[in-house]
């Protein structure tokens, strides 16, 4: 590709120069605002209150989005925003997993607030360039690039008509275009989407990082909730950040020694324990595939089942054999977890890049399921190729897989047929048809246009057209709040059902993963126990998203003596690492593990009330599809009849003898649905919310989050 010829077609639309200041204890104390409708570029100050109440990352994103939009703003209104923010810890290089950013926007899928976390270099680079958050509002007329030039301290909006859109090509083009030479490639970071984001509501953002060993651009994804669709709707082709290099203490932390000491401890754990624990360096999160199958948790055939005899074909060892071994695979500098695995020189067999040899980033665990078992496809080559295309086309692999499972079950039940799918025979296991459908989304044609709407809108559409029983569609369509479920079967863990459906943004496991604690360990048997877990873990994990941290180093390797601690599930030594690092970065010596939870609570409650402001955020929005809680079909019940019959006898107190399967399904359903309602009551109480799931004013006062704009929203919803 002729980079110079492409660049020549750029036309500067706007330019804004700024004075650069060194970061002070993790903060620039200003954010960048870019409006693509009127081409305004400016900085906004970050107040002391903003740092105290919102901290950074997702907190900053939510605050800016609240201020920038109205309760009625739709995802494709010009005033919708995309905010990308790291957080105070983001960008340190002495501890693993410290380069994350959080993307926040109004989602085309849920019509409410979406947040999605992502690795790659853009979060740290935009911070090093001078900004604690990048806030983009408005819509361009034509495709543009936003260039944050941290070397010459200016921000530009450029007409960019000639660049390709698919991320694996665009990333390479822009890294070359904006670097001085090959050595400088590592100082560029790109955010982009892809052609499927133009034609679907499940568009995703790709964040690049330069892989110095491979001399290639790699991609990490902010997948959930369609933020890539918003990005392309604003006609953004890319946001580029450039800096003049990463040095040891660009965050100007207060106590670098303390961070280095904790970093060394962690690195020793990775060196000595990873092979005995999760094998993250060899397999990444794909090590979980066979484990989830063993525990009946791997989604098979649209979450009907949790295991399959062919799952050995997608065993973690199989993924290891595909991944290039012994190369540093961190998606941020200094990360020793090194889990961003890659399949090198992979020759594509379909689509517009057929015959090309590419690097495929992943698959991670979620993708081994979503582009595999959930569709009844146990073929690593399908998964790898579909992973590549989802990434470069800019669509979320998790959502796409759950969509695929849904349409396949609809097809097998006659709700869809060849006429309705345009001839695609979407049976479980049909890899060719599944791949064709994916390419259709990118081309914006055929049934791909319908599938790209996501599960909720398909359910509504099919019901409207009289295709299938609406109740059955509701039961098997694995979405909540409009977002597709991520890849764990939650039927046997009531706590995980809450961990999914009670989330602020929709069912993603980044708030809570409680299945082992609940289902296997039986550590949280009462509703109160589950409620405590559904308070602590979502709050604790929210904190990563305020700081620019990756969750994986918290518990994907654990200190050797973790078993001897009081609360091994919380990994106390690693929690202490984070407390130490936060204090060492910001100098806030009053901080401790309790304040960590309170920081998160403030932002978590703000997000809940933000949902309420938009007409959501109450009990009815925490309802789950029944498939998440129990067996919908006769086939499903009978596949695990021994388990369900035993539970009926021992837990429900009903003798299953002589009952038809349909009768047993109904009895089980009544019991499980009732238990879920009791769980909601217990969790709302623990979180300081009303029975309708609205934060109580007294609770906001207790956590010092009783902002007038929040009280105004909730004051008429306090009945309990």
């Amino acid at each position: 590709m002729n980079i110079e010829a492409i660049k020549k077609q750029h036309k500067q639309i706007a330019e804004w120069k700024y004075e650069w200041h060194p970061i002070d204890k993790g903060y620039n104390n200003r954010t960048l605002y870019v409006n693509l409708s009127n081409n305004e570029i400016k900085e906004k100050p970050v107040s002391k209150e903003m740092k105290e109440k919102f901290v950074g990352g997702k907190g900053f994103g939510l605050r800016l989005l609240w201020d920038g939009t109205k309760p009625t703003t739709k995802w494709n209104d010009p005033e919708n925003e995309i905010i990308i923010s790291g957080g105070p810890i983001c960008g340190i290089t002495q501890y693993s997993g410290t380069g994350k950013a959080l993307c926040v926007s109004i989602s085309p899928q849920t019509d409410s607030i979406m947040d999605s976390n992502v690795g790659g270099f853009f979060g740290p680079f935009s911070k090093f360039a001078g900004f604690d958050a990048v806030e983009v509002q408005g819509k361009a007329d034509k495709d543009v690039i936003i260039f944050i030039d941290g070397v010459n301290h200016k921000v530009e909006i450029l007409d960019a008509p000639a660049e390709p859109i698919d991320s694996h090509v665009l990333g390479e083009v822009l890294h070359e275009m904006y670097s001085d030479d090959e050595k400088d490639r590592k100082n560029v970071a790109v955010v982009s989407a892809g052609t499927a984001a133009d034609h679907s509501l499940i568009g995703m953002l790709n964040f690049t990082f330069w892989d110095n060993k491979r001399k290639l651009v790699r991609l990490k994804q902010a997948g959930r909730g369609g933020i890539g669709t918003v990005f392309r709707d604003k006609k953004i082709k890319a946001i580029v950040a450039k800096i003049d290099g990463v040095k040891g203490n660009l965050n100007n932390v207060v106590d670098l020694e303390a961070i280095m000491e904790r970093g060394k401890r962690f690195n020793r754990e990775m060196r000595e324990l990873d092979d005995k624990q999760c094998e993250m360096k060899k397999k990444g999160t794909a090590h979980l595939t066979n484990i989830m199958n063993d525990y009946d948790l791997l989604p098979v055939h649209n979450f009907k089942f949790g295991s399959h005899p062919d799952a050995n074909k997608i065993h973690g060892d199989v993924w290891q054999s595909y991944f290039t071994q012994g190369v540093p695979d961190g998606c941020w500098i200094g990360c020793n977890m090194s889990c961003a695995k890659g399949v090198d020189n992979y020759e594509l067999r379909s689509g517009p890049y057929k015959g090309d040899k590419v690097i495929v980033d992943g698959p991670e665990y979620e993708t081994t399921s979503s582009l595999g078992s959930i569709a009844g496809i146990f073929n690593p080559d399908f998964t790898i190729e579909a992973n590549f295309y989802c990434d470069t086309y800019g669509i979320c692999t998790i959502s796409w897989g759950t969509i695929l499972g849904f349409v396949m079950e609809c097809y097998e039940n006659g709700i869809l047929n060849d006429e309705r799918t345009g001839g695609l025979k979407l049976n479980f296991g049909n890899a060719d048809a599944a791949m064709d459908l994916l390419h259709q989304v990118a081309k914006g044609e055929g049934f791909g246009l319908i599938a790209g709407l996501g599960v909720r809108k398909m359910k509504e559409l099919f019901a409207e057209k009289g295709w299938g029983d609406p109740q059955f569609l509701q039961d098997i369509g694995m979405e909540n709040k409009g977002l597709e479920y991520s890849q764990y079967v939650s039927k046997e863990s009531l706590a995980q059902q809450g961990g999914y459906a009670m989330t602020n943004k929709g069912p993603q496991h980044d708030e809570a993963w409680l299945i082992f604690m609940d289902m296997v360990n039986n550590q949280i048997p009462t509703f109160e126990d589950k409620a405590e877990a559904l308070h602590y873990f979502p709050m604790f994990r929210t904190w990563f998203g305020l700081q620019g941290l990756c969750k994986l180093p918290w518990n994907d390797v654990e200190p050797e003596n973790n078993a001897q601690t009081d609360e091994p599930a919380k990994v106390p030594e690693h929690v202490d690492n984070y407390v130490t690092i936060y204090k060492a970065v910001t100098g806030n010596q009053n901080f401790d593990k309790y304040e960590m939870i309170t920081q998160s609570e403030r932002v978590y409650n703000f997000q809940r009330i933000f949902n309420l402001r938009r007409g959501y955020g109450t009990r009815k929005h925490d309802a789950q599809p029944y498939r998440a809680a129990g067996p919908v079909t006769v086939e499903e019940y009978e596949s695990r009849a021994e388990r369900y019959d035993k539970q009926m006898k021992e837990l429900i107190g009903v003798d299953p003898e002589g009952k038809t399967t349909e009768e047993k399904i109904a009895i089980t359903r009544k019991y499980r649905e009732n238990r879920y309602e009791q769980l909601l009551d217990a969790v709302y109480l623990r979180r300081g919310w009303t029975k309708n799931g609205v934060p109580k004013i007294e609770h906001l006062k207790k956590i010092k989050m009783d902002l007038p704009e929040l009280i105004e929203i909730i004051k008429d919803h306090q009945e309990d």
Partner: protein
Amino acid sequence: MKIILNNRTEVFDKNNMSISEIMEIKNFSYQKIIVKLNNIIIEKEDFKNTIVKEGDNLVILHLLAGG
């Protein structure tokens, strides 16, 4: 034999089984676990030769990972 496994009553066909045998029957393949027999931590290398008897209290705690 009847034992308590993770706070639930479990019945196995055989008496006097090793921890490894029980884990195999339960399909507990996950590596990051803590095992306690009658409140005493059992190291991984002792799973094969530690025998669980009628009435014992066995905890096989699976720690979180992934996501």
